[in-house]
């Protein structure tokens, strides 16, 4: 008999993509809780096959509208590794700067537009435009900062055009950097307001021990490069990813699930802070302290706070980079790409966690096979186990409250489902 | 006529002083070409250029010009949007100044277009001789290799110095205010003649006939097979017209704010090469094919503009030749070929 995946339960709103929370009760007690992914599969790995190297990142970008830069960078890194291309220091700086835009925008979108209505008991951010206008405007300004960085450095906010294999198709001029510098400086008061606001919000004191995985790098808070790291098994090389992100298919989901040594693991802002807390910039460390994020934090609800910490970190990071670029000046670079047969693995920390693109190229520079490991897929199993635990300890709650709590849990992972059903 | 000279180093300092006090636009490198853009420092200015992507007419007839603002309150009352930011443009080549003279004839002829006029009045022009012409330019044979009257200052690169011809009172004032220039003598002026003369031989493309004969050649060439042959390839992309310094056609459009309280009417560059340019509301298109449109454009450049405004619509800059990806936009090719066809019957 064929088991077709159908839309069941309630589709979760205010997340990216289509997923449903199936929560059934029997005899007044919750009996089934299930995290179903109902997004239409899109088959990007299949579509990437045969594409020439210069459109790989263009196509890969379309896996996700929220984290398009992450997909581009993972794709570019894979291609660059396959072809043995060395990327200049300047390009790395610019990529980090663009990435700051992505992290800031994506985190602020989640914090201020998707998550915040839960705290204000609203269905969406739209009514808050009237009832809590200051809060929303603060969020919009910070979100816009992210988009402004993406537009100025990347060309546009979604699917930016400047990143290319080997570097950048367009470099920012001095005027651009100067205006960016101002924008970043102007954002500091809004960041402080945000920290203040969230320090005052109460979140669920739930915890469940799990494994955390992210990239790690000796010199920096790893976002666009580094080695793999697990809180259970320590560090690993990129090409060992398949042994770490063990993907499997579950019948109620169009997206794959994943596990490593435990039954599930988590990736994302909280994982990164759990693993790389020492590498955070000073103001970000202070923010983490203020928001009560300790050394290892196993409350998934805290992920939203962790995103705020990272936003602060990235604003500081962007300020540093702009300063450096202004001091050094921007040099024109010539991009030369000589395709060759080979395999490349690119890994980045997307806003929602570890993202890997693994390509095999033929000698004409065409993709023979592609594999993409998506952050949200790695979280699906963890979400499922968290949900089970959450329902177990809250089984005395009524259905509405329990559903709301479960939805908040799911949302705090900031799942990106269209990505995960790539 | 007054002539001055100034060392290049001095000139750069002068430009720096101009930038401190004015909106200054000049030629900047945009590899592998050049463009007119706002200058922030004097070292951005690049005067030994061959061509700019767009001509400086974008400062006088901007791609988008607001015409009027209005409230959507059912009344017909509009706010004028005439006005211009005073400024100085440095580096206009002779052919582009010729083109500006044509724009003057169009917009300051019988009817005075206030929007154009306002800009024309407050923007000073500092031109420079084009001694190393671009490979696509055929200005020499169009008679547009040297500047017409109408500039404020005119530079000629004489090696380590610029020779400056003062063309107007505004130019004199610019000299007084910003340029530490000294009087130039007959020798320098003679040298300019010589440099100009020599530059003529550096043009790679040329019109085989006198430009005055273009209308005649066109008169006999309407049915040439050339139009079809070229027109078939046309993308109707309008690139040739967007880069042309003498193209003046526009569309007028309205926008309204989201709040539906106010709006704006503006004009925006249009192109006779676009498919729908001559389409009326009933759907009838009076120039339905690429062939029709290509022919119209080259007639307009070579004949109609001359008839109506007294100047040829092509100044030989060569921008359209270069801009056209299918190599069909060249006026010099078309006119030469028609002339040849006319000779051989």
């Amino acid at each position: 008999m064929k088991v077709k995946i159908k839309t069941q339960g309630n589709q979760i709103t205010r997340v990216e993509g289509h997923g449903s929370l199936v929560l059934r009760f029997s005899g007044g007690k919750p009996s089934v809780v299930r995290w179903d992914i109902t997004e239409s599969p899109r088959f990007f790995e299949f579509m990437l096959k045969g594409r020439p190297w210069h459109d790989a990142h263009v196509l890969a970008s379309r896996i996700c509208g929220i984290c398009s830069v992450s997909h581009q960078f993972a794709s570019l890194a894979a291609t660059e590794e396959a072809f043995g291309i060395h990327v200049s220091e300047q390009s790395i700086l610019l990529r980090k700067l663009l990435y700051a835009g992505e992290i800031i925008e994506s985190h602020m979108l989640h914090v201020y537009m998707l998550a915040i209505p839960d705290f204000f008991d609203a269905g969406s951010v739209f009514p808050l435009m009237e009832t809590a206008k200051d809060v929303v405007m603060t969020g919009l300004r910070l979100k816009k900062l992210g988009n402004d960085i993406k537009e100025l450095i990347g060309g546009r906010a979604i699917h930016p055009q400047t990143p290319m294999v080997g570097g950048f198709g367009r470099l920012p001029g001095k005027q651009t950097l100067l205006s960016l510098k101002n924008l970043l400086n102007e954002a500091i008061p809004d960041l402080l307001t945000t920290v203040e606001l969230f320090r005052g919000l109460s979140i669920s004191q739930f915890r469940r021990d799990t494994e955390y995985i992210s990239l790690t790098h000796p010199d920096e808070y790893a976002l666009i490069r580094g080695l793999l790291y697990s809180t259970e098994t320590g560090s690993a090389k990129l090409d060992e990813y398949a042994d770490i992100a063990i993907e499997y298919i579950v019948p109620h989901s169009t997206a794959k699930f994943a596990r490593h040594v435990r039954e599930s693991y988590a990736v994302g802002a909280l994982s990164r802070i759990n693993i790389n807390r020492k590498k955070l910039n000073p103001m970000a460390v202070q923010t983490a302290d203020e928001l009560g994020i300790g050394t290892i934090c196993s409350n998934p609800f805290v992920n939203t706070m962790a995103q705020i910490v990272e936003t602060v970190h990235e604003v500081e990071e962007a300020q540093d980079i702009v300063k450096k670029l202004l001091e050094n000046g921007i040099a024109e670079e010539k991009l030369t790409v000589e395709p060759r047969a080979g395999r490349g693995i690119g890994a980045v920390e997307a806003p929602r966690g570890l993202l890997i693109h693994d390509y095999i190229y033929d000698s004409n520079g065409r993709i023979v096979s592609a594999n993409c490991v998506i952050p949200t897929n790695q979280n699906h199993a963890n979400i499922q186990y968290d949900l089970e635990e959450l329902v177990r300890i809250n089984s005395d709650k009524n259905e509405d409250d329990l559903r709301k709590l479960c939805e908040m849990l799911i949302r705090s992972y900031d799942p990106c489902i269209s990505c995960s059903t790539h | 006529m007054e002539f001055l000279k100034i060392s290049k180093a001095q000139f750069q300092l002068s430009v720096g002083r101009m930038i401190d006090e004015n909106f200054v636009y000049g030629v900047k490198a945009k590899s592998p070409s050049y463009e007119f853009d706002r200058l922030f420092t004097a070292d951005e200015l690049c005067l030994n250029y061959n061509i700019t992507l767009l001509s400086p007419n974008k400062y006088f007839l901007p791609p988008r010009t607001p015409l009027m603002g209005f409230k959507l309150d059912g009344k017909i009352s509009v706010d004028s949007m005439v006005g211009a930011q005073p400024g100085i443009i440095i580096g206009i080549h002779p052919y582009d100044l010729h083109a500006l003279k044509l724009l003057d004839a169009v917009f300051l002829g019988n009817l005075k277009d206030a929007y154009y006029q306002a800009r024309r009045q407050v923007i000073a022009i500092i031109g420079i001789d084009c001694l190393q012409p671009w490979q696509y330019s055929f200005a020499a044979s169009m008679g547009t290799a040297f500047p017409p009257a109408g500039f404020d200052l005119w530079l000629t690169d004489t090696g380590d110095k610029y020779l400056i011809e003062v063309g107007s009172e505004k130019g004199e004032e610019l000299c007084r205010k910003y340029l530490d220039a000294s009087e130039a003598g007959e020798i320098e002026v003679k040298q300019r003649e010589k440099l100009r003369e020599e530059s003529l031989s550096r043009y790679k493309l040329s019109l085989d006939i006198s430009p005055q004969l273009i209308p005649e050649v066109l008169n006999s060439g309407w049915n040439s097979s050339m139009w079809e042959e070229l027109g078939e390839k046309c993308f109707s992309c309008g690139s040739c017209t967007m880069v042309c310094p003498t193209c003046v056609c526009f569309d007028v459009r309205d926008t309204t704010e989201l709040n539906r309280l106010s709006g704006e009417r503006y004009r925006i560059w249009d192109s006779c090469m676009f498919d729908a340019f001559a389409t009326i509301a009933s759907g009838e298109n009076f120039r339905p094919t690429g062939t029709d449109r290509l022919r119209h454009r080259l007639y307009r450049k070579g004949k109609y503009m001359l008839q109506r405004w007294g100047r040829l619509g092509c100044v030989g800059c060569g921008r359209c030749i270069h801009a056209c990806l299918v190599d069909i936009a060249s006026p010099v090719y078309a006119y030469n070929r028609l002339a040849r066809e006319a000779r051989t019957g």
Partner: protein
Amino acid sequence: MINKSNSESLYFPRPTKLIDVTALSEREILFRLRLEDGNALYHIPGQFVEVSILGTGEAPISIASSPTQGDAFELAIRAVGNVTQALHRLQPGDTIGIRGPFGNGFPVSELKDRDLLFIAGGIGFFPLRSMIQYVLDMRPLFGKIILLYGCRQPAEQLFHQELKEWRERDDVLIMDTVDRCPPETEWEGNVGVITTLFPGINILPARTTALVAGPPVMYRYVVAECLKKGIAKERIILSLERRMKCGIGLCGHCQIDNAYVCLDGPVFNYAKLEQLKEVEL
């Protein structure tokens, strides 16, 4: 603000009040308007204005009434796009913008004492109406007058009342036709394209000037018939429609060869048009 002597007013519409709105059919409406400054439009029959709806756009519209009819003037408008549809939503008392009059208009003084053959196809009747009214108001100045009016079907024939009044006069001959007549429709006139009316008319070619307006396809056939009747090329006068934006000879849309329809037209005689290569008649 409006009507500055300054040249920017070239683009500024003059406030104009709708004093009467009459539906002519489902698609066409007749507007009666008066400039709010109280002036007359001072137009020549055959000229047009640019009608402005702020926030929507402008459309060139022929003045459908004769200057002999007083300070108010009329526009007859078919709803086809944004501006014309917006006009159709207006009520008497509303204000619109008008620029113009523009264009050359009919060569009224040349037409004095001549026999006039008006040939209107569809809404080509609108630009001709101003001249017909003028001629009827100044009847003694002109010779014999014939109006041929063709539409696609009876429902599209407009201005019944006016036509009826004119028909009742004995100093003007009106002949109408429809391309086809759907069954069970009342129709007493001819059935067939407009050229099928020609055999029925009797003119003195040397005394006659033809004035033609209609859809683009009509011109070729009508001109051929006029020539066949022996009317001189200079005496076949056509009013043309082209795309138009500025109305003042700048935007380039209405150009036919070197002629700007907004300045040199919209009225052309056939001898002139024949020289324009882009006109295939």
